[in-house]
């Protein structure tokens, strides 16, 4: 077994990766040349990621790559080895010649990895050394994504590696303009946004997490909801089971779809409050539909129970969206959970009790 040091010494990204199109000889050995074009395979992988499939296995080899025909004067851009980040970066740089230094963040995007410290000073300095960057470029400047800053101390990097860190824009798409203006970012380039489109692409992952457990829970609910009522068992299972599952789906829609989409317009600042509002709206709509469609058979206590349990669950799901959002703080989330979690659990328990009791009250 070679020692870890010798692995690091000779470590170069594999040339077998499908986006590598050529090889470039440098003073520090061969460097894989990559394509800035995104293929159908890349896009398919992206869709899978957005649907919450295979999110952990989507990484590329860390190390130094060449885009175009970079030389000793070309800029060096830093990225993470999450393929989506890397694809995003290379796709905005067609026709340019740059070096891309990819850090090993275990397949996690730059911002989250910076928060965990894997996109950090230690890994950066080590990767600069192992890629022998100082032998390849004459300048001593690294362009680090701004969202990598929570993990990188620029002054420490300079002290330890001799390279000066320049923080690039938040979004890779602004890189061409940033580089062309002499590495200057406009105030807009420095701000993290959370637009409707940015929120919409996160819904797939939110739903995939819920669906993973939700199908099982929904099936169990479908059968349990029909037990204990007077009359024919199967007729009860179909009626009350459908009521239960539709209420459950309404709560998921409210918490994991409507709340992300309508985030700026839902009242309140706490996500749990926003989710509660969306949940109450859909639960009320759900209750109204059942009451009007099957007035004779619908039990008011049961509907009332779902109007508590559904919104409580929607509120909880909405609260979980804090992690995917870009403007929440840890202190804020702790404060929100402190008041919201007991209310959500309490509301759910009361609702559940009402649903159970309903079958014994006529």
């Amino acid at each position, binding site marked *: 077994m070679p020692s870890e040091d010798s692995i690091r010494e000779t470590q170069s990204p594999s040339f077998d990766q499908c986006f590598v199109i050529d090889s470039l000889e440098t003073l520090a050995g061969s460097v894989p040349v990559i394509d800035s074009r995104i293929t159908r395979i890349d896009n398919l992988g992206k869709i899978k990621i957005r649907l919450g499939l295979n*999110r*952990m296995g989507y990484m590329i080899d860390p190390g130094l790559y060449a885009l175009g025909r970079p030389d000793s004067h070309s800029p060096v851009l830093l990225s993470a080895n999450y393929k989506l980040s890397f694809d995003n970066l290379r796709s905005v740089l067609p026709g340019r010649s740059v070096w891309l230094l990819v850090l090993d963040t*275990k397949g*996690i*995007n730059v*911002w*989250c*990895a*910076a*928060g*965990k410290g894997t996109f950090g000073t230690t890994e950066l300095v080590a990767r600069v050394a192992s890629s022998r960057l100082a032998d390849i470029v004459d300048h001593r400047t690294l362009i680090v994504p*701004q*969202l990598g*800053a*929570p*993990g*990188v*101390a*620029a*002054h420490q990097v300079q002290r330890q590696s001799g390279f000066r860190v320049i*923080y690039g824009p*938040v979004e890779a798409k602004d890189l061409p303009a940033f580089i062309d203006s002499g590495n200057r*970012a406009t*105030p807009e380039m*420095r*701000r*993290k946004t*959370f637009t409707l489109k940015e929120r919409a692409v*996160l819904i797939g*992952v*939110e739903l995939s*997490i819920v669906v993973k457990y939700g199908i099982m829970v929904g099936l169990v609910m479908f059968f349990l909801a029909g037990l204990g009522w007077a009359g024919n068992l199967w007729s009860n299972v179909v009626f009350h089971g459908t009521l239960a599952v539709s209420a459950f789906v309404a709560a998921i829609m409210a918490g994991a779809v409507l709340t992300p989409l309508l*985030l*700026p317009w839902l009242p309140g*600042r*706490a*996500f749990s409050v926003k989710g509660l509002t969306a949940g109450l709206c859909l639960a009320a709509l759900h209750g109204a539909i059942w009451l009007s469609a099957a007035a004779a058979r619908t039990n008011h206590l049961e509907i009332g129970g779902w109007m508590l349990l559904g919104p409580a669950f929607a509120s909880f799901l909405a*609260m*979980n969206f*804090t*992690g*995917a*959002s*870009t*403007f*929440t*703080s*840890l*202190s*804020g*989330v*702790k*404060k*929100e*959970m402190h008041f919201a979690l007991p209310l959500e659990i309490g509301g759910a328990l009361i609702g559940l009790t009402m649903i159970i009791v309903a079958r014994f009250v006529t």
Partner: protein
Amino acid sequence: MIYLRNVVSLELDRDKCTGCGVCLKVCPQGVLARCGDFVQIVNQDACIECGACAMNCEFDAIRVRSGVGCAAAVLNVMLGRTSTPCCGSSDDSCTTSCC
């Protein structure tokens, strides 16, 4: 969009601040602004406690209890599933959309 009011732990020590302005470049929320020779907190409630400013302040002028504003992460720590506040289940270090 602004999250909860008056809860963020960000503090700036004006005696230590040299006005170098690196914090202005790394903040993704426009929390800080230049005020003469120094930097000032102008939008405290917008701070997400990512810690980028404190990490990059050579003069130790910024203090913030940094972390990820993620309910699943907080819940995982509460349930004792992970020691570090991160999201997702215990088998993967991170599986939810936040990281």
